């Protein structure tokens, strides 16, 4: 946490006295996300990912130096937009990453569009890439894609016929839950229970009783990983024997720590998993662990790759120019994309990335890959 304070101070110092004279050109990248409030952990992952890649690139030296400017939005969309305006107009960043909360990322789209700044987010809300902005890139699998993968796995592979959904009544939970429902419909099914909970709630006994009465054999809780962990625990305490399903929201190691034994056997779809034996991924995991003393999650990996893409684009263009970055990244094609820890990156016209998700299962507190 001191690091962020230091970074923040450095950012302000820089903003105040201008860039120090040096032979290296600076690529400024703004990061907007919650560092306080309920979703602080997600914002933290986002920042760590960007920061780690920046450090790595800077250690290599070269013509360009990456500078990360972090802004806290406390999950408040007004603050996300304010921070974006500050980053874009005052700090003149080459690209903006964020916000971690999907509605706030959506709120930022008009600003990045207007000031023609490449905008990268792992927000899952469908609407983010439907605003007619060529400047926004989603560096994650959207709600629809994630839930489709999850629903098909649960129904086709695990043969579940009665699936229940328990979702947070915010934009994230609603997007995921509706996506899952649509995916089930595509399979000719309907969820047997479809319950929401107020996002700050911590007691789910009532909703779980409904799930129990519905005779569901599998439960898909979605919302914050904290709530999902509590749901897993409380379901177990009520003696319910359910196959748990989870999306990338639960992909963080913190979910396993909080849910403990209750997470056992659960299936999670995630864009990244530290369990992958691939040597590139293992080096990344080891490096991250050495610096931050925990396993990286999907959010870390996504932002790590994003900063990599930006740096590559700048190196190609020879200057930290917004237009050049955008056109380079928009020009990625299958087979000619950027190769990061998450595999190959390329985007469609709307700025949507395509990559296969891992299906992992939790066994003895560890993630085991089922398929990708």
């Amino acid at each position, binding site marked *: 946490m001191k690091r962020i304070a230091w970074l923040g101070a450095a950012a302000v110092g820089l903003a105040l006295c201008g860039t120090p004279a040096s032979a290296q050109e600076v690529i400024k990248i703004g990061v907007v996300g919650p560092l306080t409030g309920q979703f602080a952990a997600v914002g933290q992952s986002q920042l760590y990912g960007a920061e780690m890649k920046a450090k790595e690139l800077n250690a290599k030296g070269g013509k360009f130096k990456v500078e990360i400017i972090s802004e806290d939005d406390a999950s408040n969309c007004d603050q996300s937009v304010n921070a974006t305006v500050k980053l874009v107009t005052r700090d003149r960043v080459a690209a903006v990453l964020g916000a971690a909360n999907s*509605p706030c990322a*959506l709120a930022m789209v008009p600003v990045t569009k207007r000031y023609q700044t490449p905008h990268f987010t792992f927000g899952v809300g469908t609407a983010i890439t439907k605003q007619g902005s060529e400047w926004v890139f989603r560096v994650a699998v959207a709600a629809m894609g994630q839930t489709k993968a999850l629903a098909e796995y649960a129904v086709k592979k695990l043969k579940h016929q009665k699936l229940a959904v328990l979702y947070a009544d915010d934009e994230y*939970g609603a997007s995921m839950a509706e996506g899952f429902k649509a995916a089930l419909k595509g399979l000719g099914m309907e969820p047997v229970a479809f319950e*929401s909970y107020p996002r700050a709630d911590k007691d789910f*006994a009532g909703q779980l009783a409904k799930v129990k*009465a519905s005779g569901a054999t599998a439960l898909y809780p979605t919302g914050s990983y904290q709530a999902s*962990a509590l749901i897993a625990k409380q379901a177990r305490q009520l003696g319910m024997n359910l196959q748990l399903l989870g999306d990338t929201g639960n992909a963080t190691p913190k979910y396993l720590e*909080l849910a403990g034994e209750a997470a056992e*056997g659960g299936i999670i779809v995630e864009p990244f998993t530290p369990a992958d034996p691939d040597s590139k991924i293992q080096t990344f995991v080891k490096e991250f662990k050495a610096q931050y003393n925990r396993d990286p999650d999907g959010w870390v990996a996504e932002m790590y790759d994003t900063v990599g893409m930006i740096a590559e684009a700048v190196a190609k263009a020879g200057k930290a120019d917004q237009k050049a970055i955008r056109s380079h990244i928009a020009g990625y094609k299958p087979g000619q994309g950027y190769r990061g820890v998450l595999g190959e990156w390329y985007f469609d016209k709307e700025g949507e990335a395509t990559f296969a998700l891992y299906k992992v*299962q939790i066994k003895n507190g560890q993630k085991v890959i089922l398929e990708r």
Partner: protein
Amino acid sequence: MTSRARGAAPGPDFKPRGQQAMDLTTLSQLAIGGLTIGCVYSLVGLGFALTLRATDLINFAQGEMVMLGAFLGLTLVWIWPLPFYLVFTITVVLTGFFGVLMERLILRPIIKKKAPLLNLLIATLGVSITLQALAILVWGREPLPYPEIFGQQPLRFLGLAVLPLNLWILGLGLLTMAGLQFFFQKTMTGISWRAASLDPATAALYGVNPRRNVALTFGLSAALGGGAGVLIAPLFFASFGLGHSILAKTFAAAALGGFGVVGTMLGGLLLGVIETLAAGLISSEYKNVIMYAILLAILMFFFRPRLPAGRSITEGPKVAAGRAVRLLGADSPRAAKLLVWGLGLILWVLPPLQGEIYTLRILNLAMIFGVAALGLQIIVGYTGQFSFGHAAFYGVGAYTSALLAVNLGCPFWLSLPLAGVAAGLLGWLCAPLLRLSGHFLAMGTLALGEIVFLLMLNWKWLTKGAYGLYGIPFPRLGPWEVDSEPGYYLLVSAVMVLVYLALRRLIRSRMGLALLAVRENELAALASGVEAAGAKMKAFVAGTACAGLAGALYAHYVSYINPESFTFQVSIEMVTMVVIGGLGSLPAGILGALVVVLLPEYLRALADYRLVVYGALLISFMMFLPGGLADLLRRPGRVLAGWLGAGLPVRGGNHVAA
């Protein structure tokens, strides 16, 4: 690779029992769960009730006592493997001590200044913000699980599964409540406390030390919160937002019980059970709507004061006292007024000339909030009525204008006033709430705000729910499309000035005098022939309409809205604006909005320390500037008036506050 973990997932041979209604066992299971959580609501709610009874204060820091208890307990468990009941006891003592400290260092100096109630309230809000930010620095942002102190294996009897932890919570919780009841009924200190909470002046005559009593209250409240924290943290993890998430519900528990000791205990238990059963039986989407509606109904039926004048306005400390009515006294020379207005004009012209987009952006937001704050100033500052639901009207305005523009293509010049009308109309419909007084009104407006928020979230056919509305067009006035920051600066300024002028006209009229009379002493106002209920209603409608206008300006400015922008948190922020600016002064409302919006933005550089500093600033504002910024500005204003009027005779060198 598709094998499943042992026993965690039902095998394919598992036969689902199929749809079935909820049986008695499930119901009892739910009731037990509800009682457990209700027990925690009771403990925290008792803290609310005690402070409210003894000092008339709603203590926003009560939630943070829960958080503190959770973290202190966890730290104790980490360094020292003590049995749970000892951890509980030590934490209770520690948080209790903290509560006394808070009273001594922060609240007592404010109470001593005879500051209005709202100032104390904002101070506790400052404590709450600071403590949360400090907790993040010490314990980190992520929730921390408790070690498994009790077995995870549920005890089973009569087909019910009960965790040992639930039994501990129920046991220790009920024991604490019994102890408290004994303390109040049988011990001398407890009896004196009750006497003092009923009538401090008379109790003092009989030798009850009122100061010690207040200290005792805060100590006890904090201890109860801390105890609740240790009890629920093993269930819900220790996190910095733990207390915050149950704040509204525990307050509702206290209100449900009429802020009495036994009442709150029962209220909390009842609330826990109702909440859990409602989620299980009726609808999880509407369970909180149901809860708040019940609360409103109870308030309206049981806590409506018999006398139209109510109790706390005349008896307790005032919500808003007669301070800072004008920045410049009426006797200030004309030159001073012109100078102040000229200075304001220059300050207003500078940002667009300097042309920094970011500065303009936050100024625009600040002025939008300024319009809402002007409205709240009428309700709180001039009429002395609590409102914790202002964001609801702001939201109604935002949604009205946005929906009109997006769905019907309604032009901005029409949708803006319609947004004001819609919010004002809702304000008029809610006017019966104003029969409540003091903290009951606070609770009522809080519940109202929550209900409106939940409806925005759940009326998906209209509002698109959590997804929100996007693509709200920029305002178009004739040929001019306001799509730039400087353009919006002009537009918002114009609306703000119009609202300001209209409200100034209102408060300088006969009606304004009636409002002030109601604020100062409702009973006396009634006796003097002021139609208090009508005056309050008009003020409320005018104030809420302003919030609606602000909402419309906001919606078209950010072009994307969702219900998150209109939460209880935003209502509190608006109250903070009015108090920091100075109650009972229109320009002060705008000033407060500027400070509350600009301050966190300019504190960004402090990163993790941002909220620590923001909270501390709120506290020090209330401690050293009880009259708000208006008080601070009045002094140079006076000096200025003195200089300019040096040639003229200045009446009374030493002014008494207006």
